[in-house]
């Protein structure tokens, strides 16, 4: 039995092969450009940006799945398989981490023994920021994530066949502790992979900030995917205006949270103006970076916020999806803003690699998302809670039709 209709399967296959082809071409093109111009450091920076986008979305997919199992609610069932497809890429992301390991010398200043030798601050941090421990931690994070994702996906798909309601309890049971572990591991992964690109700098808010950033990007991706999938059975029955309204409201909430985190961190560091902390912002408000900083806040918050306020826009997938694309592009700018100014201290600069490599990597990663998505039914089949939901949705549609 095929899980999804042959029409949809054909479309998914064609998108998938295009994503992979374009992705590989862009990443290889970026690599060639880096070889040709001798700017390998720039390539690694761009790669880290792309990697954080893909890994962030995959991880937040896992967090959303866990929250969905814990809280329930209508927003989650229709996208559950999409979220599972997103988190199923975690083993692939472990492999995709290899270029970052190869580029560690360019990305992480604290790997330079001669720098650490003359820097007391880095000497203090050496027991945490050193290459073996960094690699062990990364493997440790992935071991936890991959195990959790594997269990959640396996139980969910085996429920499709067996209809065993006990599996729902099993999923719930690991999701409570799972959310706690997710928050801690993603925080430390953000510290390790991104915050330590400026090894002197520190911020207790950074982990939450990166989780919230990825949350907005994940919701945008969900809206984009659902707008496309809603043309197909069985999503078409379930993803109605109410669901898009829910996701739009969540995206609005994450837009507000994004600004809340940005403002909190900036205001606190700006007001104290301590030399230990302020360089991170000094780099971002000088040498042309200030333009990017202002553009980022204007687009990712001000414009996105006002666009998302409108109820008709949130309820109309065709209009909502434009905002989602806009926010996803701004997410690229956002992560670029987090990474690049730490390296380009002379002033603002951007190369073709900064677009090619992240977009390419996203394409390659997306290939694996679709690879998972097309193999299983698009909605969970025999979850007892879901059957109730389908019943109540069809009941609501009947009563609407009567009225």
């Amino acid at each position: 039995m095929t899980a999804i209709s042959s029409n949809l399967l054909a479309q998914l296959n064609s998108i998938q092969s295009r994503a992979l082809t374009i992705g590989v071409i862009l990443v290889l093109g970026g690599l060639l450009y880096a070889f040709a111009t001798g700017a390998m450091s720039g390539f690694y920076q761009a790669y880290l940006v792309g990697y954080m986008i893909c890994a962030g979305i995959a991880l937040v997919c896992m967090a959303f799945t866990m929250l969905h199992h814990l809280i329930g609610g209508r927003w989650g069932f229709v996208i559950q398989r999409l979220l599972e497809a997103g988190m199923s890429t975690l083993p692939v992301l472990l492999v995709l981490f290899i270029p970052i390991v190869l580029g560690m010398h360019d990305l992480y200043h604290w790997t330079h023994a001669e720098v650490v030798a003359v820097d007391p601050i880095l000497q203090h941090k050496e027991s945490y920021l050193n290459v073996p421990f960094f690699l062990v931690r990364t493997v440790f994070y992935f071991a936890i994530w991959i195990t959790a994702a594997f269990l959640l996906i396996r139980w969910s798909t085996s429920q499709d066949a067996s209809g065993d309601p006990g599996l729902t309890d099993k999923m719930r049971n690991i999701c409570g502790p799972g959310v706690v572990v997710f928050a801690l591991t993603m925080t430390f992964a953000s510290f390790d992979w991104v915050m330590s690109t400026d090894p002197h700098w520190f911020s207790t808010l950074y982990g939450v900030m990166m989780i919230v950033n990825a949350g907005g990007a994940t919701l945008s991706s969900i809206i984009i995917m659902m707008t496309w999938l809603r043309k197909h059975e069985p999503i078409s029955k379930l993803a109605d205006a109410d669901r898009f309204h829910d996701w739009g409201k969540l995206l609005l909430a994450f837009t507000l949270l994004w600004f809340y985190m940005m403002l909190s961190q900036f205001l606190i560091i700006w007001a104290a103006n301590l030399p230990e902390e302020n360089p991170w912002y000094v780099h971002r408000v000088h040498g042309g970076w200030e333009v990017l900083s202002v553009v980022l806040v204007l687009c990712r918050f001000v414009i996105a916020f006002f666009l998302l306020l409108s109820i008709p826009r949130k309820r109309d997938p065709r209009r909502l999806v434009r905002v989602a694309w806009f926010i996803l592009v701004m997410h690229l700018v956002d992560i670029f803003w987090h990474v690049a100014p730490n390296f380009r201290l002379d002033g603002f600069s951007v190369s073709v690699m900064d677009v090619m490599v992240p977009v390419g990597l996203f394409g390659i990663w997306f290939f694996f998302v679709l690879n998972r998505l097309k193999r299983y039914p698009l909605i969970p089949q025999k979850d007892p809670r879901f059957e109730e939901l389908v019943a109540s949705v069809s009941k609501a549609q009947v009563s609407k039709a009567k009225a």
Partner: protein
Amino acid sequence: MSQQDQAVDIEKVDKYTGDGFVAPEYNNTTVTQKISNIVLRADTPWGWYLAVAVLLPVVGMLGISITWLVLIGTGVWGLNVPVGWGFAIINFVWWIGIGHAGTLISAILHLMRQDWRNSINRFAEAMTIFAVMCAVMFPLLHVGRPWLAYWLLPLPNTMSLWPQWRSPLVWDVFAVSTYFTVSLIFWYMGMIPDLGTLRDRAKHPVVARIYGIFAMGWRGASSHWARYEKAYLILAGLSTPLVLSVHSIVSLDFAVSLIPGWHTTVFPPYFVAGAIYAGFAMVLTLTIPVRHWFGLQGLITTRHLENMGKVTLATGFIVVYGYAMEAFISWYSASPYEGFMMWNRMTGQYAPVYWALIFCNAVSIQILWWKRARRSPLVLFIVSLIVGVGMWLERFVIVVTSLANDYMPSSWDYYAGTIWDWSLYIGTIGFFLFMMCLFIRFLPMIPMSEMKMIIPKHRNKKDA
């Protein structure tokens, strides 16, 4: 979409435990009788009179403490030179935090369509109002001359005094007064349909008249309902950012400074989570005895308690996350001051307070992982008391340990509250509980109109 459109036809019963959010004996008639009888009938439980009798002297103690403070000055408190902020700011933050659960329950849970919150929201909103009243007393008294508190406002005056806009204490004035205003309007407006019910059911003409004035001519017409629901939704939308903004700004009182232990970027979300945590604990502390005394177990069900237990556990973990970040970054920052601050908290003169706080806020809540604990009113009541104490200790640790041992060892000192610090603090607790007693007795503590939205329709068909 109005709330009434969402009124459920099917019984919302938990598959695992078999309980719903409204016990089976309640339909539209019985729920109105049950709730309005608490207010309109004379057989108030003796426990209520006992509570008022105990609390009135405590309110008197508050009056004496304030009088003494104003007569003598803030010297009656235990403040000293490095510790210029003691109980006053601890209690301010503690009370403001407690108010947050009310706003979260009434606004955010409403927007998220968590309609189980309909039976606890009125109660929690009242808690918000009284908690904010207690909170604002402290900074006003701490300025030394509370009769000049209007100087905090940007009023044009002959002395060209103007507030310092870079000071988060001025932001507090705006944040807290906005919060209080919106919460009060939200609370009152939500009560109007119920006040109309009380007016119609009151036997005594004077009582009917008084409720009638406050019901503002509510007739339950569909045009009234349409406007009411629109206004309710707008107020819920307005209150939602307030949940984040108020305690974020309170956290900035600390975070924009240079003091190690205060100056850290995670403070705004961490304070907000702590506020909701303390607030939910207080809702549990109060609802568990009240539902017992007034026989409200059918309206504030075990399932409500279980949900509140879950929220307490979840927000408790966010607070613990904040502790973990503070501890890790204090080492990672490689700043000797940050490192000392954390070490001093754990091993210094206030170490017992720090470890007590860790026990209360991080260890005690772990019992809530067990369903049986979440469903046991006794366990929840004890945990909620421990959390209430723990959140007070948390503010004590933040305020006092950082100030008592700051940058200059020569100025270090030891701080403890005096009897006047304690009498003022306990006095506000008495005032808060006293106001809650009045509220329970004279106003409908569970929204009758909103309960009817979640009562399954078929129960009313039987009557017809």
